[in-house]
């Protein structure tokens, strides 16, 4: 059982190295996109493996998805509201 956790941890460390490594390559706005994508991947690993969301009951999946959707609302509509300013 702990083997699965260690693999997840290795994956996280790899992604961390990837993030830091990618910051040396000048990609302009691409850097931020890469950073966020890697961060989302790390968060997904922690959620699925460490927090056992994968083996949790469907209700937990619904809850996690709902929070994700509401954060999306918060960011997208705040951007629409304030970008003109």
């Amino acid at each position, binding site marked *: 059982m702990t083997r699965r956790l260690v693999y997840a941890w290795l994956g996280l460390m790899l992604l961390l190295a990837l993030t830091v490594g990618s910051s040396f390559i000048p990609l302009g706005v691409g850097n931020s996109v890469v950073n966020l994508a890697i961060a989302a991947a790390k968060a997904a690993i922690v959620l699925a493996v460490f927090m056992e969301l994968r083996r949790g009951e469907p209700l937990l999946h619904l809850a996690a998805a709902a929070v994700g959707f509401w954060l999306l609302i918060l960011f997208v509509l705040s951007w629409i509201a304030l970008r*003109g300013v």
Partner: protein
Amino acid sequence: MTLAAPDRSSYWREGAGIRSWLLTTDHKRIAWLYLTSLTAFFFIGGAAATLIRIELVTPQGDLVSDDVYNRLFTIHGIVMVWFFLVPSIPATLGNFLLPLMLGAKDLAFPRLNLASWYVFMFGSCFTLYAIVAGGVDTGWTFYAPLSTVYSNGHVSMAAAGVFIVGFSTIMTGINFIVTTHKLRAPGQTWFRLPIFVWTLYATSVVMVLATPVLAATLLLLVLDRIFGIGVFDPTKGGDPLLFQNLFWFYSHPAVYIMILPGMGVVSEVIPCFARRPLFGYKLVAYSSIGIAVFGFLVWGHHMFVSGQSTYAGVVFSFLSFCVAIPSAIKVFNWAMTLRKGQVSFDTPMLYALGFVGLFAFGGLAGLFLAALGIDVDLHDTYFVIAHFHYIMVGGMVTAYMAGLHFWWPKITGRMYSEWLGKIAAGLMFLGFNLTFFPQFILGWLGMPRRYHTYPPEFQVWNVLSSAGAVVLAFAYAMPLLYLTWALFWGKRAPNNPWEASGLEWQTTSPPPEHNFDVQPVVTGPPYQYGGQAAEETA
């Protein structure tokens, strides 16, 4: 006349003395704790409102000074929004009835429930002290940079207090969501739940997802005010519109926190007194969830003229029109429920019918403010004040009264006096309309809100409104008196005085500490009124 205590076995008799009340984890007693504190806050907010209305009888400011007037409407705003409207139905009727309606023994987290009351009491008393003694005059909206730089009242303490009260709302929200998912009676599928449970669930979803944003906003406000981090301070590069954006992201869903439970109460009362199943039950259930979701998309309509881009204005105006659809469906279905029924006009029904009418008018006024071209003129005028009071007072408080009267026999085991109830309901309806309809006209004429003095040509409408406020104040005092009287000396109530359907009516009035002697089982859809039961697929 001895004080005839309610019968032996009910939750009243579980323990005697203050300790048993202050340390209880019984959801019914916690509902009582909330009921007493909320009633106190309602009359504190009401007193502030009465002073404001008396001041506005004359165009000059001759009752109180500018400063005191600004503090009065700040107290009225903060106390009414956060210490009465947001918690009122969920924390009192919701706490008492949710376990009963689900056939459960108690909420999922009883200790968390008691903790939420203590957090509420500490936060609200702390805030009340801060705004009264500290002279907070920023209004309940705390707009930056007035609140962060220019106001000299104890804004940080008030913001910290509201921050604490926010956690009480979050705790109640978590408790209700988990209870609705995990503690339903055997056979009680989602579409056999009463609409009151649906609306409490939708309210809890909004509570849980919106209140943390208020907590973050108030935290940023305090950090900006005390340490000057400059997030909202334009001189340091911050953006006052950012504050408005984050504040209204919470505050518009908050108004749906306030109105949804009222819709739930009315969805229980009208079928019972019309002896008809609720018309289009499934659609009313879906529209409750629809309101909870859509409520989060529309907050930009508070910022149409505040420097927000025109593009954003058009987007939010469109979404604000869409959010009216679920509410319109509900109003239509409440009216259709009356058709071909056996309508009786007990006090709860009078309040419920009043709710449907006044809430509909409030909602239609909302369409005015959602239309961009109109909001440019009517924003921040008394038209807005009339709009949200029609929904909060005409809708929410009326539904609160309907719920209190409808479930009073179940909660206390006593009947209230029916004719006094009818008088109070009629007086409230008249007083309310006399108070707030003239404000629609004042807003149209262009009187801005939060004005201590105003040009003389607005005086006649203000005098009408103030007269209405006196009638309303008297109408609110009546239930306080006759319900308290009924608590001790009212006629004994049978288990189901209204022959209503719903699990809460299958136990004794008042219910025993463990709610049900035999675990109720649900076999069919709710609202088993009238001959022909609502088919499962309704």
